[in-house]
């Protein structure tokens, strides 16, 4: 089993080396003529005004948090799914309970408009 991951490790090195090689190749070939107008930040052709720091809506954080909750739930489902055929009825009941508790949470979020974009 570890040999499979050795392959993944080597493959990862190759997979990340490919873009690096490509970029090095491009760096050798392309022109390098920086000038202030080209290097300034893009803002639809005008000068930037204000800092780059933008008002970060709390909504993004909520989406990330609800995602964490459901991500963990999904992770719990996988070993259960793989072992399911050999388990008895209790496996079904307990997973249904697990999912229903989380569905309750989703319903709460829905009611409280935590899933709305605004």
């Amino acid at each position, binding site marked *: 089993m570890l040999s499979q991951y050795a392959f993944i490790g080597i493959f990862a090195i190759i997979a990340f080396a490919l873009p690096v090689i490509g970029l090095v190749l491009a760096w050798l070939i*392309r022109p390098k003529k920086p000038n202030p107008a080209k290097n300034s930040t893009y803002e639809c052709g005008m000068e930037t005004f204000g800092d780059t720091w933008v008002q970060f809506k709390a909504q993004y954080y909520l989406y990330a948090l609800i995602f964490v909750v459901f991500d963990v739930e999904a992770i719990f489902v996988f070993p259960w*799914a793989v072992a399911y055929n050999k388990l008895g009825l209790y496996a079904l009941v307990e997973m249904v309970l697990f999912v229903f508790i989380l569905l309750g949470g989703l319903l709460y979020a829905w009611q409280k408009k935590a899933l709305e974009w605004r």
Partner: protein
Amino acid sequence: MDYIRDFFVNIARSWTAWISTFLPDWGVSLVNYIVVGIILVLMPVLATLTLTWMERKVIGRIQNRIGPNRVGPWGIFQAIADAVKMLIKEDIIPDRADRPVFNLAPILIAGAAGLLWAVMPFGRRMIGADLNVGVLYIVAVGSITTVAVIMAGWASNNKFALIGAFRVVAQLLSYEVPMILSIATVVLLAGTMRMMGIVEAQVIPFIFILPVAFIGYFLAAAAEVGRAPFDLLEADSEIVAGYFVEYSGLKFGWFYIAEYGNLFAVSAITATLFLGGWRGPFANAVPALGPLYFIIKTILVVFLLMWIRGTWPRFRIDQMLAFAWKVLVPASLANLLWVAVVLKLPLPAPVQWILMLGGNLLILFVAATLLGRAAKRDAAKHSLTPAAV
């Protein structure tokens, strides 16, 4: 004749036998890993070269025009022309960009697109590494993209890039849940997380048993890759290329390659999970046909995605996120539980499958009805007729 029957495996065996004559065991393994690694890593690049051409032709035809036809017969060398252009363009890095992070983002994203191919089952015994946690590996590699997007958006030091990155990440996160749940349903039915095992378990392709899981995965994966109708965040008319607006030259090229590589990979995964992967007529007797069926099914899914891109209008971001959380997640969960219930019934397998299909169709019907009602309410709310005001 027998040699050709299992052509690819036999070529691999002959090659291994040949290099074993002058290399120690670990050298043989290393060389094989590197060779397979290089072949697989070129898949996203290959995908970009061919699929960009295919896309421009298909969308062109859908929009009643021809598409590129100047560079080579039917324009097939167009992609090479584009690639050369990207190579020689100047690389402009904005002044106050965070250089290391700025440069790292396209490398991460392109690497992640390549990493996916390690677990794709091309044919019987033709897979990079048949991990015990194959499908989870795929989801995990997909989640690396999320971090890379934030890196690109933040390092550019550009308001549009940052906002674009946040929105893309919100979209990616929202659609990852129905994607994982659909995959979990398939794993439940197949009883294994190994990609090879899932293909072998598909006596009949799973799309006929679990259409809801197929639709859930298909739409969620389309949103993950950023394809229309979920491409609000990179549509040129919207946020000006979004989070990679400050990238030029080959760095932009790598984002592009990653996008098409992901498109190809997601289609391949759909083909593996739902269409039977390398299975097909005579595939058991002649294993060399496996990769052919695999590629054909993958291209079919790619075509389906391109067709949808040329036909459906774009979603607004609030519609998109609402669809993920309020429609796809409950539907996927309901499907998962239904499949679990049916699997515990003491019935023969084909009867179970028919029951599962029935449940799926019921879920589809309910979802469509509720969506229809919600759409009518939404239309009435936003309508401008005097009666509604």
